[in-house]
Structures are given as structure tokens and as C-alpha cells.
């Protein structure tokens, strides 16, 4: 089997999320932006308008708002499985930032790398997986080469 240079994983969920109850996997976001810089304009608008609504809609996520002198405003999202994702929001509008936040909220926290198969099942077969002996009458002996008198 050839292997590609980039890492890949299988489709899975953290802790069988959704089988029992659905737990939002985003545990905290920190919005780091500057009070005066141009690139944080969208971030400042979002803090004025949308962040309180977002925090009320997602009570399971802690929102930290941190104005500090920085060139590049960013959102740091921490997930329940320990992964931390940083997204830069330089020169994004308030609308784009809220869309980005909904995207981060709906993610599971697993790495965004190539997924080998877009499906996964724990019970792949009900009647049993096929193997060469399935549906072969027992009167035929062990598997041998092709011989004419079988037909």
C-alpha cells in the first residue's frame, strides 16, 4: 500500500458523542484582539454586537475576551479532547467572525487531516462477512484447484 506524505485518520467521534447525548466539544474560546489596530476592526465590532449572543447560545463554552496590543488578532479554540486550534481573524468582518465561530462550535476537535473513509461502523455485517467457505456445500472437500467434475 502506498502511503501519502500527509497524515490521515479514520472517521470517528470523541467518546461516542451523539450516541447518548450530544455534548458540544468546544470548551473555551479566547478572542485576542487589539484596541486600536486596523486589522482588529471586525473583531471589535463582533465584541460590540455578537459575542454576548454567542455566549448565551452556547452556555457550555467559556468565552474569554482579551484586548491586548497585538498585530494579529486571533481566536484560540480549545476542545474537550485537548486539541487547541488558532484561527487568525485579521481584517475579517463581524459577520465572517460569527460564521467562523459557528464552524468552530460544530467541529469535534479532531485534527483536520485527510479522512480515509467517509463512513465508519462498529457492526459491519449482520449475516456474517463473506469468506470463501460461505454458501459452499459441505459435501465438497477442502478448497483445491479447479477441477472439471465439480460442474
Amino acid at each position, binding site marked *: 500500500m502506498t502511503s501519502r506524505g500527509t497524515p490521515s485518520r479514520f472517521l470517528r467521534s*470523541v*467518546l*461516542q458523542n451523539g*450516541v*447518548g*447525548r450530544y*455534548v*458540544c466539544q468546544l*470548551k*473555551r474560546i*479566547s478572542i485576542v484582539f487589539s484596541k486600536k489596530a486596523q486589522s482588529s476592526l471586525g473583531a471589535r465590532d463582533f465584541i460590540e454586537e455578537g459575542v454576548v449572543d454567542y455566549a448565551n447560545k452556547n*452556555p*457550555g*463554552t*467559556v468565552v*474569554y475576551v*482579551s484586548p491586548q*496590543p497585538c498585530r494579529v488578532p486571533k481566536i*484560540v479554540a480549545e476542545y*474537550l*479532547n*485537548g486539541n487547541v486550534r488558532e484561527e487568525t481573524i485579521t481584517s475579517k468582518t463581524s459577520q465572517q467572525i460569527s460564521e467562523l465561530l459557528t464552524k468552530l462550535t460544530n467541529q469535534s476537535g479532531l485534527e483536520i487531516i485527510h479522512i480515509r473513509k467517509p463512513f465508519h461502523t*462498529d*457492526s459491519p*455485517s*449482520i*449475516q*456474517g462477512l463473506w469468506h*470463501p*467457505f460461505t454458501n*459452499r456445500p*459441505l459435501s465438497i472437500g*477442502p*478448497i483445491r484447484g479447479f477441477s472439471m467434475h465439480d460442474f
Partner: protein
Amino acid sequence: MASGYLLNRGALTLGIHCQRVCRDISLSQVREKKRWMKAYTYLMAKKLKLEGPPPPTPRSQQPHWDYHAEIQAFTHRLHENFSLELLKTVFTNPCYLQMEQEKRKGLGVESETAALVLKDNMQLSKKGSAFAESFLIDWCRASFPSLPAIGVESIVGHLTSPAVITYVAKNLGIEDLTMSAEFPVPDDVLCSTFMAVIGALQESSGAERTGLFLRDFLVTQLIGKDLFDMWTVVNPMGLLVEELTKRKIPLPEPRLIRSAGASTVLPLYFVGLYSDKKLLAQGPGETLAAAEEEAARVALRKLYGYTENRRPFDFSPQQQQQQQPFIQSASN
């Protein structure tokens, strides 16, 4: 010169852009290529290679942390109602209290002036683990009525083992909230904190909701697991013979059903177990003995109802609430 630049590297912009006229360089920041940057970066990389990465620090000691907000988010995230006072005791471990006492003694603070008003979570933890075990045993018996007591014990033992509990606790964010003496939090401390969470949930919301919580987070860890991964059976054939004598079914006779590649490096034999000339189960193996053992295991899985194609467990949300409207409509 370089040290002067290093000192001012962290200096904030003062809004005063002094020109480089005077010799005093303390107030100037110049947008030039920094000649010390390369040497500094290489030195730090060398130091990292020599000493290894810095030790991990608990999340509470990193920036952006508000304990009260984190605990509230924890309750909302799990869709449960905990009483906040109980939660304060849940995450306090005895090792943390000991460490705090020693710190206070070391600083010379008397116990009267600054008394530690925190209670530890040992009681809640014991209560929680007792409830968890009893609930899981009941659930196992209800789902697999023909499974013997040893099997039920081994399944419950696997579900309450430190490995599974620490995995669940780490993926629920309990490790960040735990207050313990050491970091990374040791396994047994994390287990007892998880059990204390169960105990607190039982006290705040009652046994039903705690049962649903355990079903949603512990029982789901059984998905995809085979019975004999959790229960080590040394002699499956002997166990099968016992089970069949209990149910008064004639004893199994092994017969070779299929074989392939008998003289090769990878032979394959299928052995079937027949009781009263009817096929109980068949299993494959590389040698005849291995195939017979596997056939016995397959037969046991069929008897106990733990096959791969069994009806999946019922994880529907709040099934009790769905039953009540039916009763009301029937009475009306």
C-alpha cells in the same frame, strides 16, 4: 548594546518615536533588522534541545482561566444541573488540601487567621463509585440475562477500570477542573474525581438522571468491544460444557468442517461443534486446537447473546418521559 536592546524588546510602544540622535538608546525602537535576533533564536533552540521541552503546566495556571465560569460551563455542557456548592467540593482532592496546609505552615500563616474552609471529595467519591457499580451491574443483567455472574463482574470491572474512567474523564474536561497536588493529574486521583462527580449528580438530580449519565458516558465505551476482550476465559470448551449441562442440551462434539492449506505455512481449519447432530457454532483457526477453541468461544457468544449482530443497546434520550404521555392518553 545588545543587552540594552534586549531590555527594551519587551517595552511597549510609548508613542514617542525618538530619533537616533542621542547616545541614550533606552527610549528608541528602530525598525531595523535586529542583528541579535539570529544569535538569540539559535541559543534558545540549543537550550531547548539540551533541556527538552518545558514541563506541562495545569490549565488553571495558564492565561485565560475563570474557575467559576468554567464550572458553570461544565454543568451546561453535560445538560445536567449540579448544585454549585457540591461542585466546589467535588473537584477538591485530599492531596490538594494537604499541599495547601503545608504551604500555609511553610509561610507561617496560623490556622486560625486563614483557615482552609474546603472539604475534600472522598465521601462523594465513595458514594459515586458504589452507585456506579450497582447501576452497571443492573444494566448488564438486564441487557444480557443469560450472562453468568463472572461475566457481568468482568464487564463492570472493565467499565470501572482506571483506563476507561481516565479516558472518559479526560475527554469530558474534568482534568482541567481537578485541583490536585501533582500535574499531570495521577490516574487514581482522576478516577476518584470522576466518581465524586457521579456522587454529586446523584445528590443533586437523583438516581434516574445519574443512571442516564452513566449510560451515556460509560456504557457507550462498550460499543465495538468483544465479550472475551473484557472477560479472560482460559478454558472456553469447559465453560461451554458447563453451560450446556445447565440448560440440559446434549454435550458438543467437535467435527472438522473445512480445511485449506493443511501443508502450508498458513493452514486454515474450520471446526464445528454439534450437539445432537445439530450445528451449535463453527470457528476458524490455524491449528485444529485453536479452531476448536474459537468454535467454543463463538458458541458461548451465541449462548450469552453477545454476538456482533445483536440488537444494539437502547440509547434513546429520556425514555421514561416518552412513556408517560402514552399512559395519560390511555386514561383519557
